[in-house]
Each structure stands twice: as C-alpha cells, then as structure tokens.
C-alpha cells in the first residue's frame, strides 16, 4: 500500500493547493488584524489628524503621553477597576463553583441562572443597572431605604468610597490620595462582576469536576478536615483553572469600555471624570474633535504592552505555584 502514502505525501506537500484553502481566512486576517496591528505601531510615530498623515514625529506621542496627567489618571482609574473586579469576581465565582460541586440537586438550574447575564448584551445590561442605580427612583436605594440606610448617588457620586466610609464614620477630614475609586466606578465594577461571574463559575466548575475522586478519597482516609481538603487538594489541583480565570478576567477588565460609556455620564467620563478608563481616554484622543489617531495608536500600544507585561508577570508568578 505504499503508493497511497506516496500519493498522500505528494498531494499534501503542494503549497499552492494549501494556499487556496488558507487564502480566504488569510486575506481577512492579514488585512484586518495584522495590517492594523502593524500600522498601530507605525502610526504611533506620526501625526495623524483628520485621517491624514501629517508627518513623522518620532517618539513625541509617547513623550506627550508620559507628561499627560489625564493619561495617568485614566491608568489609575483602570488599575482601581481591575484591582476591584478581578479578585471579587474570582472569589465569588470560586465560592459558587465549590458550592455547586457539592452534588446538589438541580445543578443545571443554578448554572443556567448564573450564566444568563453572559448571554445578554452589555448594552442592555448597562441600561438596566443604570436604572437600578437611579439615585431617586432606583431599586437599590429603595432597598437601602427599607434596610434603614441612606440613599447614595451611585453612578453620579464622584467621591471615593474610602472617603465616603470615613465621612459616614464621622471623620471630618480624609486625605485626597486615599479617597479610593469613586462610588460611580465601584457601581460599574459591581455590574461587571455580576455580568461576568457566570462565565468564571462555569470554568471553575469544569476545573473542579476534573479533579479525580481518588484525591478526595485519600484525604478522607487520612482524616483531613474540609478546610484542609480545600487547601491541600482542591486549591493546588485547581490552580491551572484559577490561573486561566485570573488571566482572562484581568485582560478583559483592562479593556473595559461599554459599561462605562453607557452607565456613567453625561458628563462624559463619569462624575468629575472619575470613571474615565484607559480605553475611554484612547477613544477620546483618537476620535473626538481634533483627535489624533497617531496619538491614539500610541495609547493603544501602551495598553497592549501593559496587558502583555501583566500576562507575562502573572505567568511567571503563577508558574511556580501551578500544579499541572
């Protein structure tokens, strides 16, 4: 039968035929992914206004970026957002997944409900939550009212949450630097956690179900307590999953835009600009009146560099603790 394998090798080493199969996808990927990424790099060194390249300016955009306080502000806001959303989402998702993994009845029901927001559009979800957060007529303030709390401004509150807590505790003065993310940003974080948690739960649940029963059996025979079982068996064996969830949630959180665009403002960027994240800054500089797409490209590349660096750092740190 050697003629068949000869035939196969012959047919399968012809690059021209292969090209025919790859070309449809290849053209699209080349023109709408590779070319834009290449040109983002290229454009960041040029003055590009009104869709026209107006001259090479070298690293001037990066220098300008470095000196722009609103860039650093937007970076700080994004950092608050990521630092809030990622751990909370991971913790709650893991908790829910562990509970769901306890051989409960109607597992499918809970999973379906928790995952529902993932299927719905972020635009619709943002509108619904904006209404729930309504300072005067919103459901949340009504609930606070019933529970004896005082109404909050939520998405319209520029003051930092730590500052709010401090003033509620009776502190007259609180340092500006420690005000924390604005309540408006925290409200957006709540929505993001709510929207994305179902996805993380499903991933964690799959990871938990992949842990072989023998390990639990062995732990049981050794008389381990549930806490010991979790920290000595579940947690290490789940670490590849945790790592994946951590990474993907971080990357998505860094790119947050839609929720903020729809829920906070007017004015644009939320109350006193406290919800202006990096992607918002990028669009503002690229597309608003007098926008410079070269500058926006520089912002985009900085964002890309940050995400890439974080990915590498996370991989480095977690690599040592992940048990594959």
């Amino acid at each position, binding site marked *: 039968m050697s003629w068949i394998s000869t035939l196969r090798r012959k047919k399968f080493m012809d690059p021209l035929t292969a090209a025919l*199969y790859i070309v449809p996808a290849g053209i699209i990927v080349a023109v709408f992914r590779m070319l834009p990424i290449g040109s983002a790099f290229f454009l960041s060194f040029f003055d590009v206004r009104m869709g026209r390249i107006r001259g090479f300016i070298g690293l001037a955009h990066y220098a300008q970026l470095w000196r722009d306080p609103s860039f650093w502000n937007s970076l700080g806001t994004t950092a608050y957002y990521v630092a809030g959303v990622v751990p909370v989402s991971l913790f709650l998702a893991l908790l829910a997944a562990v509970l769901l993994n306890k051989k409960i009845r109607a597992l499918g029901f809970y999973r379906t409900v*928790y995952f529902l927001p993932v299927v*719905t559009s972020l635009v619709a979800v943002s*509108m619904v939550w904006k209404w729930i957060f309504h300072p005067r007529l919103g459901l949340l303030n009504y609930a606070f009212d019933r529970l004896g709390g005082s109404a909050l401004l939520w998405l319209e509150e520029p003051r930092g949450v730590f500052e709010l807590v401090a003033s509620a505790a009776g502190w007259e003065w609180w340092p500006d630097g420690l005000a924390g993310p604005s309540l408006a940003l925290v409200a957006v974080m709540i929505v993001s956690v709510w929207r994305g948690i179902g996805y993380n739960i499903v991933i964690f649940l799959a990871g938990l179900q992949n842990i072989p029963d023998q390990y639990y059996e062995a732990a049981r025979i050794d008389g381990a307590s549930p806490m010991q079982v979790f920290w000595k068996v579940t947690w290490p064996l789940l670490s590849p999953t945790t790592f994946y969830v951590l990474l993907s949630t971080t990357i998505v959180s860094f790119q947050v835009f839609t929720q903020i665009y729809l829920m906070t403002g007017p004015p644009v960027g939320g109350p006193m600009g406290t919800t202006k994240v990096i992607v918002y800054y990028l669009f503002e500089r690229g597309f608003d009146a007098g926008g410079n797409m070269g500058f926006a490209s520089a912002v985009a590349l900085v964002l890309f560099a940050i995400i890439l660096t974080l990915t590498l750092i996370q991989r480095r740190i977690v690599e040592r603790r992940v048990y594959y």
Partner: protein
Amino acid sequence: MEATARMTDHELAAAYRARRGFGRAGLYGALWIGVIVMVVPFFWMITTSLKSPIEILEFPPTWVPTGHFVEASAGTWEEVYVVTRDAAAGTAVVRSVEGGPSYTVEESLVVDRLRLRFRNYAEAWRQAPFARYYFNTILVTIFVVAGVLVTSSLAAYAFARMRFWGRDNLFVLFLSMMMVPQPVYIVPSYIILVKLGWINTYQALIVPWIAHVFSIFLLRQHFKTIPNDLYDAAIIDGCSRFGFLWRVMLPLSKAVLVAVVIFTIVGTWNSFLWPLVMTDTPDVRPLQVGLARFSQEQGTSHELMMAAATFSIAPLVVAYFFAQKQIIQSLATSGMKS
C-alpha cells in the same frame, strides 16, 4: 467504621457539614441568594417595561405594574392617577390618567389592580427605527456566521491535513492574533475602512469578522483527531480533497461547528465597540448601537428604555432557555465574556 468507609462522597460531605453546623439549608440558602441577585435585575427590567410613566415616578416602587382604578359608573372602571392620599381623612385626590381635573374620592373606592402596559413596547419600537436595527443585526449575523464557517473550515483543513513549507509558523502567527485586544487594532482598522470607503456600510460590519482565528484553531484540533485511514479509504473510492472535507470531515465535526455557530451568533449579536466606531447612520446601524443611542436620547422614559432593552435581548435569551447546555459550553470554550 465499616459503614463510614462505604459512605458516598455525598453522605460524607453532608456528615461533615452537619458536624460543622452548616447544613444543606445553608448551602441552598447561599445558592438562592445568588439566584436572586442574578434574576432581580431582569425581573426589574420587565416590570419597569410594563409600567406607566406615572407609576415609574412612584416611590416606593411597585414590584408588579399596578394601576389605580375608580368605578366611574356601575361596571365601568376608570384608571386614575393618585395625586395625594390623606390617610387620616380617608380620602384621596385623583386625576384621570388622560389628564383632566382632579377630584376627591373616598380612599377605599380607589382599587389597585395589575395593569400591564404592553403598549410601551410598541411605543419604544416606534420611537427609533428598531425594525431597521433588528434587520441590520440579523443580516450581519447571518453573513458573519456563514463566512466564518466557510473560511475556518477551509483554513483548518489546510492546517490540519496538508503539509507545506512554513505551515506551523503561519499557524502560530494566526494564533498570536488572538492575543491582541480590540482597542489596539480598532483605530488603524478605522483608517483602513475609511480608505476602502466602507464606513457606514454592511461590509464594514461583516468582512473583517468573517475570519475567526479561534474557530480555525478549534476546527483544526478536531480535524486532527480524524484518522488518516479514513482519508486513504476516501481517496481510493475516488473522493477529491475538497470532497473529503465536505463529505467526511465536516459531517464528523458537527458538534464543533455548532459551537462555532453559537459563539459567532452571540458575539455578533452583542458586539458594540466595532459597530459604534464604524457606523453613524441608522441605515446600517445594528441593534446594540441603536439601543445605546436610544438610551442616550431617551434619558428619562425608563419604561420605554426597559422595553427596548427587553426586546433587544429577547431572541438570545429565548434561544438560551431552549439550548442552554450547548450555549454555555460554546461560550465557555470560546473564552468570550465581553
């Protein structure tokens, strides 16, 4: 001890919890808190969408849409707006919903009844060209799904089955595109679409999305599991290379293809950032951008905004309830979350 050894995990877990004073009740209680948190926003959206503009302004808000009625004459009820209630005197000042003068009635004569205003939906639908938006989204989704299926199957076939120079390097280059976040390439893409004259066209929403690297990856991984013997047999039977893809590979990959179709539909239906940047006329504007615009222009008619939000998510949510297992699986593999 013999009994303990034969306990199932379930029983053992229960025993542990019973000992720690955290029983099944606590477990289900925690899960139900989660259910309530996930469901209430949707419930609130639907409730609000069926209220009257007057009821929206009532505080405390009502859980189900409620109308106030006064018996005008025997058997006929008139819907009224309660201006004030005087509990001490037992009277209420009411006004006809259509306007008109206010008058005082005995409070006990004002009857609260369930009142669902379905006409909010028609009203919202009319206030913006939602029919057009719907049409645009469906059209774009159909073309993107078809395009992704064609280009991904072909490319995956080449990457999985054919041997050619630089194949693996090219594949890695393709894969690396998945790591680049959309905000990075959206600005230059805009310039490219401007140069192509595609801004405000369907092409701008379709063509850049008809190749999907992750779908290629997924299909390639599956194609690789299909044994070579099958190929040999097919060739001996006179099957062409494309015929093998069409008649053997694709029918054997139905599950993967379904997953690709699902996450492409959900992704296209819900995509926002790209069409927001690439379109600014209602002719080609898709549903999500139209909805966002509606919400920004409306601003105050919460019942209409919630109606529009409801009918915008309805198709996917209904599909989700029928095929939640496949949809969860598909979206979980795709890594899609926003």
